[in-house]
């Protein structure tokens, strides 16, 4: 038997896989032999810069194209089943649980892929105003959104928060599970192979306690989607630039039900309604 080849767990920023600029690593509990990049405030800043560039590409893409790219993510997850299951098992799941979570991840991704070119019809409107005016409301992405993913489920937790934001045309900087960052970081490899434009999604690993408040404070983040119960400290910091803030506080049972994780109402808080008026005249 030959010596196994290990993987270095790195960040995913601007379509590349850098180590933390800080040079720091951490060893997740139960995997003391694995050194995972420990993202810093500077890494976050770099990721936000990348996300600002990715926003233009992603939101400028046709909804049909975005739908196809999200579907491609599902294809890549399916075709890398063995590898992804292994990442999930590294996070402590049994083989059966890992298979189940991957199935859920694929199902979730396909559902949101098909929503891309419907969200505008469902959330926008033409409005019956008085007078000779054509008036309609369209939706646009809020911008760069920060995501703090739950510790568990490591893959579905990240995807469930990420996908509705991508449907809305936003770009994302996500902090993946601190407890089991493997599947979350491996998701970056899937995204890179799925034609997701560089910077549209950026994944960081590190300590939630250290980084969550930096997400909340940063003025170039437009919205914040955080797993867990409402956290006053984060919202207070986020108010500095009037960020849109939502929390996703689900039981582990809810996290394992795909139906609970797919909703147009998760897209809505991170899109902006823009209403246009124009006179009607001969």
């Amino acid at each position, binding site marked *: 038997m030959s010596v196994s080849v290990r993987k270095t767990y790195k960040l995913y920023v601007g379509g590349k896989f850098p180590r933390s600029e800080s040079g720091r690593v951490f060893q997740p509990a139960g995997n003391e032999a694995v050194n995972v990049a420990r993202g810093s405030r500077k890494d976050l800043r770099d990721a936000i810069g990348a996300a600002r560039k990715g926003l233009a590409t992603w939101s400028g893409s046709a909804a049909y194209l975005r739908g196809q790219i999200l579907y491609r993510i599902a294809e890549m997850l399916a075709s890398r089943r063995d590898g992804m299951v292994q990442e999930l098992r590294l996070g402590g799941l049994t083989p059966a649980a890992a298979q189940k979570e991957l199935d859920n991840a694929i199902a979730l991704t396909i559902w949101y892929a098909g929503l891309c070119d419907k969200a505008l019809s469902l959330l926008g409107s033409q409005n019956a105003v008085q007078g000779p005016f054509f008036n309609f409301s369209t939706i646009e992405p809020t911008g760069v959104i920060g995501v703090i993913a739950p510790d568990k489920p490591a893959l579905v937790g990240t995807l469930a928060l990420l996908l509705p934001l991508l449907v809305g045309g936003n770009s994302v900087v996500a902090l993946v599970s601190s407890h089991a960052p493997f599947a979350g970081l491996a998701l970056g490899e899937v995204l890179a192979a799925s034609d997701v434009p560089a910077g549209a999604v950026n994944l960081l690993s590190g300590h939630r306690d250290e980084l969550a408040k930096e997400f909340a404070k940063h003025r170039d983040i437009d919205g914040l989607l955080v797993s867990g119960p409402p956290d006053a400290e984060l919202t207070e910091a986020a108010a500095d630039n009037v960020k849109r*803030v939502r929390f996703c506080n689900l039981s582990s049972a809810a996290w394992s039900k795909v139906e609970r994780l797919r909703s147009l109402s998760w897209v809505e808080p991170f899109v902006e*309604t823009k209403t246009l008026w124009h006179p009607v005249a001969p």
Partner: protein
Amino acid sequence: MAKTDNKTSVPKRRANNGKLSFGGKWQYAKAPESTDHVAIEDRYGLFIGGAWVRPKSGKYFATINPATEKKIAEVAQANKKDVDAAVQAAKKALPAWRKLSGDDRARFLFRIARILQERAREFAVLETLDNGKPIKETRDVDVPLAAQHFFYHAGWADKLELLFPGEKPEPVGVVGQIIPWNFPLLMAAWKIAPALAAGNTVVIKPAETSPLTALRLCEVFEQAELPAGVVNVVTGDGSTGAALVRHPDLNKVAFTGSTEVGKEIQKAVAGRSVDLTLELGGKAAHLVFEDAALDQAVEGVVRGIFFNQGHVCCAGSRLIVQESVHDLFVRKLQRRMARIRVGDPLDKNTDMGAIHSSEQLMRIRGLVQSGVDEGAVLFQPKCALPKNGFWFVPSMFTGVTQSHRISREEIFGPVLSVSTFRTPEEAVKKANDTSYGLSAGIWTDKGARILWVASRIRAGIVWNNTFNLFDAASPFGGYQESGFGREGGRQGLRAYVKLRSGLLPG
């Protein structure tokens, strides 16, 4: 090419530079709206639990007419205990109101809309007295729109299941609302109507300096026999609002006002699972391209910045004109501005009324002074202003740069700043050079350009070849630091319901 005789082929410029002059002989006769049909109490209490009550604070303060500085009436200063009484009344009224059928909630709202229409003249006069805005506007804009908001939302009350695909919307609960002084009745209507339609109960705080029409609205609720406690009105200063947003029994807060206070409110409700909508300040770009119908654009720009004395969060305060037509457009604007009639708000010919308060007048003066100090060129037409009251001449700055305070800070007054652009890309860049994002205006004859520019401007409302139009069916609200949530339309009502699958508020 043959030589031509310039002397005969070029028409002579008229000596008066194209201006019409009637030698002061065609003045408008006075046309004041009568006020004798509007009975005003000397003193108003708080409207809590369907009754007029004296404030526990025991304190009252005066509200004045900004056009005369004369006291109109005294209103109650609600303190923490008063606010608590109002919230408890709303909480008590909630179970029955949310259980009431949508059909019946609709009928109450339809009644309110009808009564407002019937008493429209009275409301228009009272609003003009308390606010200082011209009767022309209260009569044609504020009051009819307020009635429309009740009528529009009445029709939603029995159709909530149509609001959001696949959801059964539920009321949020007790809603605390804080509204500003620039559209006192209209703001009250567009806060209260959707809240009630969705089955919520309300505690609303009108602005300190313009409380009278919200209080009169309570008389409408009484006439409509709206159940006690469904709407409660607490008057007072900023401390009343602070007590309201910090009350632990609120389920939602809706605020319209400054960005500064909006941020404080977002912090105040943090971590409490309180739904929040914020409609905050703005610094709208008003873009005029060289191919626009310039005379119409002049009217639009005037409407954009001088409507309601410029006390409008979505006012088109930053005019950005294509360089090739800048000089011509500015000349046309100057000529038009000289014809804006400033004066008695009750006069039906008045275009611009009084500045709402001395405090606001000071702020406008301060910012205008900063514009002069920073090197912009001020234009103000000759304009006779009344002796008493708070007044400001319609003003325009040219030669304004992006870094001037007058192009960054919300003036909330009749002051326009003018700068230029060369390409559509530059126009978009300048328009977006702000932390606000409430509204924008675009004037061009090219349809494709309108859609191209409009889709690149970060703002919640984009008026194209028009400006400052409002409708209950049209969602209103901002991007970025102009706040979040919409008011009006399906999207506006959405902010007053809870969805079972939804994410939690911050």
